[in-house]
Structures are given as structure tokens and as C-alpha cells.
């Protein structure tokens, strides 16, 4: 009898049966062969080609940052009154991208959403890499980067202490905590897979490396018991962080007096935006991954469909937030706030406001259609649109609000320089370089977790396809 996992659950009523989370026949052995053997194969020429492109972009970024260190912040377009521009836009953008991974792996884990199992690993890795890109900015954007460590409260002979009232300091803690917990969570999940790879590999060097990384994992029952407990605890920890980190980032703006920044809606609005941007980036990368790494049977159209639904939901929340911004501006009768909002839709940078609204609100509405949710064209279009739109949303919040605040005498137009674009390009280069390297050296799918949804793992399963 040949049965799929879903249909094998004989005693579950028809309507509640989950659609299959994989296609065709997948056994623990075939899964290992498919996923764990991949890093052992020689990379194709296209991979080197892609790596060359991303490394070039990263190099441009490094040169741009070096030039900034040499010349000063004046190398960028930042000016008075737009003291923050690409630096903080990029920071918030990358922190936002870094939200999907932990959401998928932690929150959806707690909610027992089993479709997350196949994509959690990749999404988490993207979180780590995005946060790495994000933390570059707080370091390089300060006027005297060689003193950036002063932002940490460490004991010193000058008896100087940091200012705990500053949201910028909260940022330091929030992002650091988020990064460390995400990294631990990701690494913990990797341990059983690394152990499998250790056992499979024939290369001596790989064996040594995997042995060290596997931390003596033997797959014993006690190991699994501790593993599950730790995973659950970290998932619980990370869940809070998913909500807190971008809320804290939003405090940078919400607690200030700048009209257009000083908004109580910012924390939830930022979190929703971050999940939105993160999911879009995950969809974009997953499409490429499932096509190029022959993972269509594990990352199915159903995964993408669910992801697109999340994107659609977040798009609606974003739409609501934008409308609330306008409503607040009108209802508050605050002339400064009113001016700040009108600037978004009619000001010098009105085009950026409309790019944001179109990319984040209008275009994703196509995902109401099932056809669009299962069409590469539409989902890539939406994902790219959301990525652009969310970058511009931060541009709108930061640059448009700053360039015209209280005293019209100080108003000024902001123009980015080539160095600004160089740094932005560089972070994309760093991000995708890390993604490419990750795809080559570590299992991109958590095999242990996928095994949990295979029919073999089901208590009701008495399959006879073990021998197939």
C-alpha cells in the first residue's frame, strides 16, 4: 500500500487532514541523502558566478565603509537637519528582514505549525545574516567609530556610565540580545544535523569540523530529551524577542519629539512591518533555493502559499497603520504632525511616500488570488516590491520627517552620495555571500524536524514502505 503521510492518518476526519507538506515519497533515508549529502557535492559553476557577484558587492561596501572611516560622516549625504539617513534606514531595514526567521522558527514552533519545519532552518539563517548586516550600521554611523564601544556600559577609570534614558542604548541591548538568542537557537537546531553529517562524511577535515560542531551528539534518548527541552525554552525566549527588538528599534523614533516620529502606534507597526519585510525576503530566497537545490519535494508550493498569506495579512496591517498615521495627523490638530504627514504624500519626497504605499499596500493585494499565491511571477513581484517598499518606508519615516520639522528656516533637501549607495549595496553583498556560503556548507533543511512530519514518525503509521 502506497500512502502519503496525510492520507495515512486513518483516524483523523477528512476535513481536518492537513494537506501534504512534501511531494512524492520521502523517507528518512532519502531525506538524508537529499539534504545532508548536498554539502559534499561540488558546487556548480553558477554558484561560483553568484558568489563572485555578491563578493564584489560586499567589497564595494567594505571600500565605501573604509572611505567613510577615512573622511568622516561627511562622505555621506547626511546633513542638517537630516542627521540620520541611509545609515539608520539600512539598519532598521536589515533588522526588519531579520524578523521572519525567528518568527518562523520560534513562534510558529510554539503554535505547532508544522509547515514551518522545512523552511525554519533557512529562514533562521537569514535572520542571523540580516542582523549581522544591521549591526554594521550602528558601528559605522557614529562620528567617531573608534569610540563606538562607549555605547556599552563597562566599568572604567573615568567613572563614566552610559545614559540608560537613551533609546539608542536600548537598541544596543535589544539587538545584541536578539542576535545572541537567534544564534543559539539556530545552532541548537543544527546540532543533530551536524552530527548526521559528521557520521556521513568521508573527508577528514570535514569530519574534524563537524565533530567539534556536533558537540558530541550521539542521538541518545537523553540527548533528545535535553534537546527538545532546550529548543522549547529558547523558542519561548525568542518569541518575546521577536516582538521586543523591533519595538525597541521603533522607540528610537517614537520617544523623540520629531513630528512624524513621535507616534504611539510605532512599536506594533514596526513589528508588523518587520515580519512583512522578512517574509518577503524569505519567499524570494526560498523560490531560488527550491529551484536550484532540487528541493521542490520538500519546499512545496503549499509552503509558499502559506508564506504569501502571511505577507498579505501583514500588508493589511501596514495599510491600517498608514491610515492611522494620517488619521492621527488629522485628529490631533497638531500642525507639525499634519505637515509631516502631508509631506509623505505631497512633499518633495512625495514620490517616496507613494512608492511605499504602492509596494507595501497596493501590489500585495494580488495575493488574495490563489493563482497569484502559487505563481512564481506574482510572488516574486510582490516580494521584490515589499523589499523595496519597506526600505522606502524607513526612508519616508526618517528622511521625510527630519527634512522638515519645526523651524522652516532649518529645512533642507537631503541628497545621498555614491558612498551611501555603496554601503547599501555592500550589505546586500554581505547578506547574499553569507546565504550562498550557508547553502553550501550546512544542511539548509532541518532533517530532524522534517523527519518528524514523515509518516514514519506518526504513531499510527504501520507503513510497509520501509523497504522501498
Amino acid at each position, binding site marked *: 500500500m502506497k500512502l502519503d503521510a496525510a492520507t495515512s492518518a486513518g483516524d483523523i476526519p477528512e476535513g481536518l487532514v492537513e494537506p501534504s507538506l512534501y511531494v512524492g515519497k520521502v523517507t528518512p533515508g532519502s531525506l538524508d541523502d537529499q539534504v545532508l549529502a548536498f554539502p559534499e557535492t561540488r558546487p556548480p559553476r553558477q554558484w561560483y558566478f553568484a558568489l563572485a557577484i555578491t563578493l564584489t558587492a560586499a567589497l564595494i561596501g567594505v571600500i565605501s565603509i573604509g572611505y567613510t572611516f577615512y*573622511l*568622516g*560622516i*561627511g562622505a555621506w*549625504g*547626511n*546633513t*542638517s*537637519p*537630516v*542627521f*540620520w539617513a541611509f545609515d539608520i534606514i539600512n539598519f532598521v531595514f536589515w533588522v526588519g528582514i531579520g524578523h521572519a526567521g525567528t518568527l518562523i522558527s520560534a513562534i510558529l514552533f510554539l503554535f505547532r505549525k508544522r509547515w514551518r519545519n522545512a523552511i525554519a532552518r533557512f529562514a533562521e539563517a537569514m535572520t542571523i545574516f540580516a542582523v549581522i548586516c544591521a549591526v554594521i550600521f550602528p558601528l559605522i*554611523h*557614529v*562620528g*567617531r*567609530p573608534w*569610540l*563606538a564601544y*562607549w*555605547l556599552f556600559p563597562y566599568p572604567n577609570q573615568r567613572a*563614566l*556610565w*552610559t*545614559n540608560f*534614558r*537613551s*533609546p*539608542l*542604548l536600548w537598541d*544596543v541591548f535589544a539587538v545584541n540580545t536578539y542576535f545572541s538568542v537567534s544564534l543559539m537557537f539556530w545552532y541548537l537546531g543544527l546540532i543533530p544535523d551536524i552530527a548526521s553529517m559528521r557520521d556521513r562524511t568521508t573527508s577528514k577535515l570535514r569530519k574534524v569540523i563537524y565533530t567539534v560542531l556536533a558537540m558530541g551528539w550521539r542521538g541518545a534518548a537523553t540527548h533528545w530529551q535535553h534537546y527538545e527541552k532546550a529548543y522549547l525554552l529558547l523558542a519561548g525566549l525568542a518569541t518575546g524577542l521577536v516582538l521586543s527588538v523591533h519595538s525597541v528599534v521603533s522607540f*528610537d523614533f517614537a*520617544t*523623540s*519629539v*520629531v513630528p512624524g516620529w513621535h507616534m504611539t502606534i510605532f512599536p506594533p507597526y514596526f513589528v508588523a512591518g518587520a515580519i512583512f519585510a522578512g517574509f518577503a525576503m524569505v519567499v524570494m530566497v526560498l523560490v531560488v533555493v527550491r529551484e536550484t537545490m532540487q528541493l521542490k519535494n520538500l519546499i512545496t508550493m503549499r509552503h509558499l502559499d502559506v508564506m504569501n498569506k502571511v505577507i498579505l495579512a501583514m500588508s493589511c496591517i501596514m495599510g491600517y497603520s498608514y491610515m492611522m498615521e494620517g488619521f492621527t495627523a488629522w485628529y490631533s490638530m497638531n*500642525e*507639525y504632525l499634519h*505637515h509631516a504627514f502631508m509631506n509623505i504624500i505631497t512633499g518633495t519626497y512625495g514620490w517616496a511616500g507613494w512608492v511605499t504605499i504602492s509596494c507595501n499596500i497596493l501590489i500585495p493585494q494580488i495575493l488574495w488570488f490563489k493563482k497569484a499565491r502559487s505563481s512564481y511571477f506574482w510572488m516574486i513581484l510582490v516580494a521584490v516590491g515589499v523589499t523595496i517598499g519597506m526600505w522606502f518606508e524607513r526612508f519616508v519615516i526618517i528622511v521625510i520627517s*527630519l527634512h*522638515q*520639522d*519645526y*523651524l*522652516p*528656516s*532649518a*529645512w*533642507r*533637501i537631503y*541628497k545621498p552620495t555614491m558612498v551611501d549607495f555603496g554601503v547599501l549595496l555592500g550589505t546586500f553583498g554581505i547578506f547574499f555571500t553569507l546565504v550562498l556560503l550557508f547553502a553550501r556548507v550546512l544542511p539548509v533543511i532541518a532533517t530532524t524536524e522534517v523527519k518528524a512530519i514523515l509518516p514514519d514518525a506518526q504513531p499510527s503509521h504501520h507503513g510497509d514502505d520501509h523497504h522501498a
Partner: protein
Amino acid sequence: MKTRLPDHGPLETPRFWRTLEERIETPEAQQAAHDEFLPGAIPTGPSYDDVHGLPPQSGVSRRDFLGLVSAAAALAATVACDRKGQGTVVPYTKRPVEVVPGVANYYASATHEGRRVYPLLVKTREGRPIHLTGNDEHPGVKGKTSPRTMADVLRLYDPDRLRAPKAEGRIIGWSDAESRLHAALAGAKAAGKPVLLISGAVASPSRKALLADLKAALPTLEHLAYEPAAGDAAEVAGLASYGQPVDLQPRLDKAKVILSLGADFLNGEDPEAQAAWGAQRRLKSAHDPINRLWVLEGPLTLTGTNADQRVPVAPSRLGAAAFALAKELAAKGVALPAGTDLSGIPAGAPAGFPAATWSSLVKDLRTAGRNAVVLCGAQMPAEAHQAAHLLNAMLGSEAVGVRATEPLATVKELEAAAQKMASGAYAAAIFWDVNPAYTFPKAAAWKAAVAKVPVRAWIGQVEDETAAQCQLLLPENHWLESWGDYATPGAAVLQQPAIGTLYDTRPGEDILLGALKALGTNAPDGYHAYLQARWKKELPFGTSFEQALHDGLVKAEAKTPAPAFKGASVAAAAKKAAASKAEGLELVLFPGFATHDGRHANNSWLQETPDPITKMTWDNPVAVSVQDAKALGIEEGDLVTLSLDGVTVKLPAVIQPGQAQGVLALALGYGRTTGGVAKGVGVDAFPFLGLDPASANARTGARLAKAGGRKELSRTQSHHRMEGRDLVRSLTMDEFAHNPQGHHHGPELVTLYEEQRFPDHKWGMVIDLAACTGCSACVVACQSENNVPVVGPEQVARGREMHWIRIDRYYEGELENPKVVHQPMLCQHCDNAPCENVCPVNATNHSPEGLNQMAYNRCVGTRYCANNCPYKVRRFNFLEYTAYKTEPETLAYNPEVTVRPRGVMEKCSFCVQRINDVKIRAKGDGRAILDGEITTACMAGCSSDAIVFGDLKDPKSKVSQLVAASRAYRVLEELGVKPAITYLADLKNPAVEGGHHEA
């Protein structure tokens, strides 16, 4: 008690010993051996081991060893620190008696710009003049001076200064240089050939005497005093109206009604006029007397922005309008001076002049009578000046002093000199502190003419266009290194050096004295002796020369009779004025606010001080009226071609609200071809200067066309409307009487937080917008006091200027003739400062005296504070603006103020160094700080006394009383930031309802 013992224990016989005594094991010896390393090396307090009950290991614990090693390493690191380019610090081996390190010395001195004299107090530190203010002893200026004068201290340290004499491009010694000059002069004397000497205005009696001596020794000497920015028309009109050269001194303290015909007396140049203006504007109540300022002008001047009633009138129509006014007054019964003929002037209001405005202007002048004054702008045509003279004579105005003075050469006389030079008549030419090669309109003709003079000597500081045409270059002292004297109304003023010469330079007078001696006249050695001899003869009984030097002046009224007005001169001028009409556009050429006639073009402080009207720095765009810009399709920053009489220049345009239709305005003093700072900044407008002195600066027949292309304007303010926000409150006298705070009454703000407490002092400031004219003297004063860096035009264009105080200028109402308000904006030192709580490293915080202070050393440059500052007064060092500076530029720094490196935020400190200076002195004297004892640099620099600083904790202080004044309000008070600066609403005293909105 545990005792520390050697490792081997006390009872064993040591296997190794250090001394014989130790081997013998006497208790004393053992103690001595034990104690050997005790002091310092071994902790005397309870050690870690003791506290934790560990057995003693050795004399020095591991922790202490590490501590010592790290301390040694840190010390080594400190010692090894060596920053590039820093030399050894060497104290004075022989300290000059005058100089006490760390203590400022003040010298009374003076300088002049054209005929205007500025008595000064020079602040020096370690022998270096670093800051200039007016001489408080002088009865006229009363401690005030002009922005350009304040910035002139930087010229002393101009790296471009010529440091030794030069001949044919080679450095030579003074003896060689002098013998060349003397040979040329002696040769000319022997041959009876004329020698040309062109200098600036002679405002100094001793210099005048010296020139007379030289003329006696060298009868063929022809001296021209030329001031290209003085306005030839004023000179011509003065000669016509009074029969002799005159200098007009406004006495605004006596003026109830002031009519300005394009006169810009509130632009900071005239501290006396501005002080009198301020005194009549700082009203406590609506019942206080206030003057009324009428302005009829083409371009918008700073005075025009302060007008109560302003009517845009093109310069060509100004004379006719003023004569019509005289005719109207005469018709109303005001007596005309004898011989006056106004028959050429049509009766009634000039065309386009609103009838109601006209009649109230006539009424105002008639009513004010002797308390009315008519002032005419130097650049206006001669007819307008003559009409102003006539009006003042008719009204018998007491508010203007007419003084006979030394003549100035006009462009016509310069042209004659050029022709004579071209004919080869002159044996030699000396150019002393003048730059005709740049300022003469026909530069090519001048160059060709000068080349025909066999010996050409140049006396000056920075090699300029004229120096390039001379063989012999004689470097002159800066005035801060020189002696001199001036005659001013009310006092004879002395100029004494505040520093020894920095280079191998001499005062120009010394060079002339040398020539005098070489020509065989007995003369003292050096100008100091010459001047002292003259002064000792003329000093009043009981006054010593030393006392005069100490005070900088001797009070004395000039006893020359006032010249009489000649009525007969009017007929011709009136006829000319009536016939005057403009073909094409009118072009007004006015001295640049920063550069004057180009002499200040190499001063980077001034180049970066925004023009008070256009807010332009580092450039002189042509100002086009709103109507003309619309007709020609010109937008701000568009490149245009301006042509007149065959001269064509391509330059950017700005659209100037309030400028009369058909009028263009262009600043002189830019487009220099020499000087490290000046070179290539803006365009040279001197080629447009007319050769007819009667209308040299007000030309007609100009053409303007779009040239295609744009230029990014280096402007510090790009948005000019207030957007209906309650930022600058401006009241008419009516409104002031009924509703002194204006219409804005916000609710009292409540806070959940504890109020800030200030135990001893709470520093605060009040700025009276009614007295502030927008002259920007405070900006320059602050730049000099606080080592504010200059960033250059590209950085200004990107919004990165560093001024700690700026003047916000807003237009309101119709663009054709808007109401203009100025608002000095600086750090408001908020009690609830939004910048303070967002700094992650606590680099900016609040002092217990209410100062919002910056710890530059702690700043890492996140710029969050600047984002969160609602007033946008924080300045960020985007690039390294200071580290690459070397001597002599660094000598201009105020040693009391930290020089900020790149990546650091900075802002106004309320001149905390001055506060502390006074506090320390008061403490030393064992007394309280007096009210008014602390002056910030901006306050001291403000001629109209619009800024008052003091202690808000002291209820009797001036600032406390002003804070409670009826016009008081705070900017953005509704944010709850509690600024420490209170503004007093601006006042306008219009004669006609809505008087500002008519064309």
C-alpha cells in the same frame, strides 16, 4: 597578627643571605631584611589573601603584580603618545612683562573702513589678539562695532600675507626695497615729474599731516584717496549741495521719523545708528515713544526689512520722488532754502505711489520737523542725495550731522589718472592699501596705463591684483600691529598695536616717513614717534599720552562749522531727476556684506557669514525681483547672463522678494583673482561700475537672460516662509497696545516630572526682536569667540555650516513687498532638553546653572541629539575642519574654547568660558556676580542691544525683568521643553493700515 616572612621561614638558617647581619640572624637584621621592600611595593592594607584567609604567598600578590604591570604599560603608552606635527612645549625663557599666561590683556585701539572709524577694545591672549569689541569709553560707539571689523582680526593671521619685501618677484631686504623707492622719488623730484600716490580714505589727522609733509618735500606728488565702496554719487552730491566734501552722521537718537532713500544704515556698519535705533525700539509698553522708519528703495536692504512703511521705488525714480516730497512739503508751508527752484518737478505723488501712503509720509515729515531725517544710500544717484540734503535743510533736521571732511577721489578722477599714466607722465606710482587694478571698471585699460609708469610700488598686506602690476612690493603691517589716530565726532581716537609685527613688515606710514627723510626733510624715526609728537602738542592739559592710550581716546568735540546748504544747486538736480528714466533693467551695485569692496574677500569668516537678506555665503548672485523673474522665467539658482555696456557676466540668480520691479542688485567685492580664500569666489561686478560718478553704482540699461544651467546655491536658509507657525511674533503698535503677546496664548503645560532645580544661578537670555535688525554681528562675534570652524561653499550648500548662532529670516505676505522678520536662533538651553535624554553616552547634559552643556571628549557622534533638537541648533563636524590648520591660522583661536575634531557634535554654550571667568574673578574678590557683568559674545557684539544675558534666579536682574515683559514669549513653548531663551515680539509702527502690503 600574621607577619610576612621570607619563604624559608624564620627558624631555618637561610641558605642564601643578602647581608652578613642576616646570616648572623640578629632580630634587627631580620626585620631590616623583611622591611626592605615594604614601603609601596607590598600593600599595607588588608590584601586579597588576608581577606580571604589565604596563606601568605609572597610580598607582591599576582593581582598587584598585574596591576603594576598594567599601570606601567599604561604609563608607557601615555608617554609614547605622539601626535603628528606637535612640537615641544617650551615655556617662556624670558617672559615679557605684559604677558601672563592664561590671563587676557585688553588694549584700546581703532581701525577704519573708508571714512567710518571703529574705536575698539582688543582682547589678547598670550600676546595674540583674538577678539575685538567696540571701545566702551567712546561716547558714540559705546562698546559696539561692525561685523566686518570684528572679523578683521582674522586678517592678521591670513597665511597669504606677504612676509618680506619683494622686487620683481624676489624677496629682498628692506634697505634694498627702500633705496629703490627713494631713488625713484628723488629722481622724480629732480626731474620735476609727477608721482602718483593712491590710498584709501584719509580718516587720520596724523596720516593727513604726514601726507602734507610728503607733499611739501615732493611737490610733484599727486595724492588720490579712493574708496570704491563709498559711493561716488554721495561725494558728487555733497560737493554740489554744500560746496565741499561732507560726511553725514545720522543721529537717530534725535529722530522721530526717518526716511531712508535706499540708505542701509542698519546693516551693522554703523554701530551708533544701530544703538540709537535699538534704544527707540526696546519698548516696555505701548505708551513708550517709538520712531517710525520709512524706506523708499529699489533692492531690499536690511534697513528695508526693518521698515515700518516700505515702498519699492526704482533708484532712477528715487530722486524725482524725493524732490516731489520737497515740493509737497513746501506747498504745505515748509520753507525752502534760499535759491531753491523746484519748478522742474511735477506736483503731487509720483506715479505708482499709493495716495494714502504718500499723504501720510508728507504728514509724518511735516509733523516731525526737526526730528525728521532723510538719509540716502551711497549707491543711489546723485539727484536722490541732493534731494535728501534739500529735505534735511528744509526740515532743519537735528538728526543728522553734516561734517566737512577730506575729499575722496571718484571713478572719474581715477580715469583721469589712468589717462595720465598712459601718457607716460608719471615717474612713479605708489598704491597704498588700494586695489584699483581690481576695482577700476576698465581693468584692461588700467593695466595698460599702469605699465607705462616706470616705477610702481605697492604697499599692502596680501598680494592682490594691483600687486601683480607692480615691481616693488612693500608688505604692510596689519592695523593691529600699527600706530594711528582718527578724528571722530566726540573724541580723538588712538590706534595702538596689540601685538608686535609677526613678519618682516612695516606700517605704511613708516615707509612714507623713510621717503620723507630720503627727500631731505627732517622727520622722526618711525610713525610712533611722529604720532606721539603730534599728540603731545595737542593733548588737553592734564591728560597724559599714556592715559590716552589706556582709554584709546581723548574726548573732544570737533569745532569745525557745519557746512551750509546751497539752494541754488537744486534746480539742475531736480531737472535731472524729473527727466531720469530707466531703459532696460536698473542695476544697483552695492558693497558686499561680507567683502565690502573686495578687501575682506580673503576673510573666510566673512565669506561664510550668510548675507542677512539672501542668506547666501561664498557667492554674489544677482538678485532679481519677483515680477522680473516671472517674466523672464528665472528660477532660483538658474544661471543668467547679465550684460550692460558691452560687459557680459554669467552668474546665478536669486529671486528677491520686495525688490522693486525692473531692478537688479549685485554685490561688489567678489570675483577676485588673488588670495587663497578670495580667488574665484563669485563674480567681479566692478566692470559694471559706471564712469559717471553721479550714477556709478545705479546703472540703467542692463539686460538679463537665462543662460541655461543651474548652480547649487551655498545658502544657509532655503525655506523662507513660516508656514503659519507661531515662531516669530510681530506686532503693530495697535496690537501691542491691545494684546501685547499677540494672539497666541497656549495653556499652561503640566508635567509629571519633577521640575529642574537650580541652586545658585539659572542663566537665561532675552532677545528683543524689535531691536534686532538682523545685521549678523552676533554671528561673527560668536565665530571669533568660540573657534567656530569655516566649512566652505560646498559644505554650506549641503547644509553643514557650523555657526552656533544663526539669524532666521522669514517673509510674510505678498512677495512683491513682504513683511520681513529676523530671529536670532541659538541653543535654547532647554530645562527639559530633548537632546539630553537621547544621548547614549551622556555627552550632553544639564548643568546645575541651567546650561545645556556638551562634553566634546565624550561625544561619539550618533547625532541623535541633533535630530531631536526642535530648533536644529546643534552642529555636527561632518568632516575634519580643524586638525589640518597650522600657524598662523591657529593663532586666531581662543585658547579658552576647545577646538572640536571631526565626528563631534557642538553648539552654543552660552559662552560658558566667559561665565566661568566672571565667576572665578567674583569669587577671588569675595563678592557676588553683578548683573550684566557676564556678557556672551553675541550680546557684546550686538549694536542694538537686542540680546540680554543674565541670572534668572536674581529677580532684580535685567533679564528677569525682561522675561516678565508683556512682549515676552518662547519659541515652540508648546513642546514643553522649557527654553531658557525668551524672545520679545517684534514691533512695527506703520503709518497706514496694512502699510506693508502695497507696491
